[in-house]
């Protein structure tokens, strides 16, 4: 019997259909990139818990729903039980006073910097902030409705996408592997598995690092509070923990946000020094103890490469780009390593 799929016409049609499918997937990915990446984060983070439930004979999709419910209940519980002082309500209630205090404190910093470092010319922090604040505020309030809508849509989409990735991800991976020609089959299998392991390990390592950085920050601010007033300990620890997910830039971002919070509050400058000391010490502990312990096995990238991919990621996709830059770079590294090893083997034989 003649092979039906051996005809050139059928092959061309199949190729065109494949191309169209790739194009559609690309367009869909452009639209769904943020929720899709967030869903992948959720999948990788939930994976150990899902594996534990699967050991008890629970279906992966049902296990995901159980873990999701527990997570939502835990977050909801924390938000309900959290004291009002940690929810920034005190600042929202008196935002004019907050801005006024912030400008006054910034003015003090500016005067101090000008008196200590006259050789750098005069700092014009307050003028710069006042100039930019109006533009930023206008843009912020213009963009706010679309941000809220996007956030709400993404919040619904993320668990939805994650559910299907958990349910069908492995089958999809197997189908993709089945398409690979025999010559590259094992290489692709090894490559995919190594990428999977690296991304999963990196994301889980980062999450552990975030939690530990937050905890260390809270403890250090607690110690600092013995000597100087240190309010919003849990809030700042949370900010520093979350921002530390972005290497190098994250701690800086956390420090800036925490500093703005302190400058706007009715606190003496000594509190600011206490905060900066605690942030610096937490960053040091993170670099010396936490990061080498939780991340060294996962991603083997040179610090210069990390800095470079962060800049490229930030330029291309903003904050999201910085977040996914390292997993993407490490995946590319694995692919290149496998191809190079294969090439070398072919040269030798």
């Amino acid at each position, binding site marked *: 019997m003649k092979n039906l799929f051996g005809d050139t016409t059928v092959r061309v049609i*199949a190729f065109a259909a494949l191309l169209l499918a790739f194009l559609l997937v690309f367009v869909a990915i452009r639209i769904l990139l943020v929720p899709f990446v967030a869903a992948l984060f959720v999948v990788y983070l939930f994976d150990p818990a899902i594996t534990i439930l699967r050991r008890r004979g629970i279906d992966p999709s049902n296990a995901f729903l159980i873990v999701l419910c527990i997570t939502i209940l835990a977050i909801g519980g924390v938000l309900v039980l959290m004291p009002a002082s940690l929810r920034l309500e005190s600042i929202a209630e008196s935002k004019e006073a907050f801005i006024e205090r912030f400008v006054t404190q910034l003015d003090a910093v500016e005067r101090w910097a000008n008196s200590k470092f006259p050789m750098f010319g005069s700092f014009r922090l307050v003028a710069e902030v006042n100039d930019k604040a109006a533009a930023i505020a206008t843009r912020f309030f213009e963009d706010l409705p679309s941000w809220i809508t996007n956030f709400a849509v993404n919040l619904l989409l993320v668990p939805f996408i994650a559910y299907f990735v958990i349910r069908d991800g492995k089958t999809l991976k197997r189908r993709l592997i089945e*398409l690979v*020609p*025999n010559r590259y089959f094992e*290489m692709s299998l090894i490559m995919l598995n190594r990428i999977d392991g690296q991304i999963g390990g990196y994301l889980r390592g980062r999450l552990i690092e975030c939690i530990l950085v937050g905890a260390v920050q809270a403890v250090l601010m607690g110690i600092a509070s013995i000597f100087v007033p240190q309010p919003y300990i849990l809030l700042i620890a949370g900010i520093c923990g979350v921002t530390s997910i972005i290497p190098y830039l994250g701690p800086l971002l956390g420090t800036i946000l925490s500093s703005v919070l302190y400058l706007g509050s009715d606190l003496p400058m000594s509190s600011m020094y206490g905060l900066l000391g605690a942030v610096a010490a937490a960053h040091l502990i993170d670099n010396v103890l936490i990061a080498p312990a939780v991340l060294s096995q996962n991603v083997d990238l040179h610090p210069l490469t990390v800095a470079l991919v962060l800049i490229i990621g930030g330029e291309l996709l903003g904050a999201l780009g910085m977040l996914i830059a390292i997993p993407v770079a490490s995946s590319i590294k694995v692919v290149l390593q496998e191809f190079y090893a294969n090439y070398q083997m072919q040269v030798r034989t």
Partner: protein
Amino acid sequence: MKADGIWANIFRLVTRDESLADVLQNIPLFQALTAKELRILERLVHLRTYETDQSVFLETEPGAGIYVIRRGRIEIVLNHKTEHPLTLAELGPGDFFGEMALLGYTSRSATAVARERSELIGFFHPDLIEILNVHPSMGAKISLGLAKTLAERLRFTNSQLRSIWEVQESPERAYALRT
């Protein structure tokens, strides 16, 4: 016309019938598995088709797992691309090869070539790790089977080495023992 490369795999009609479990349960690695566990294994393995003279893997290439022959004939060859290739074994349906790579991504010690159109069942290291994570008792059975198989092969290699050593040390005695 011979379909090859990606086309052969896109349009291949994958028939995962019950006989897949039948083939697997005769392999020493999977002999201790229950019917339910064999069904789980069936969903994890990869079915691949190789044309005549197509290589399954090459010597020194990184390997990821074991192949069980469902249909066809596979030749295990040393120095495949040289003028003097050495055929180590010729395997048929129900035989398996490449089990060392199941323990980790190690280099293949020989080349495997299909001598006729062959259908192979591949079981790989990531699949074994997943089984060990999700179904630990099933994973233990497979690991024990793998250990037994490797021990058997080691015992066979040892006896061959002993024969070689005896021939080298005392050819007369070895001859007398043999006769």
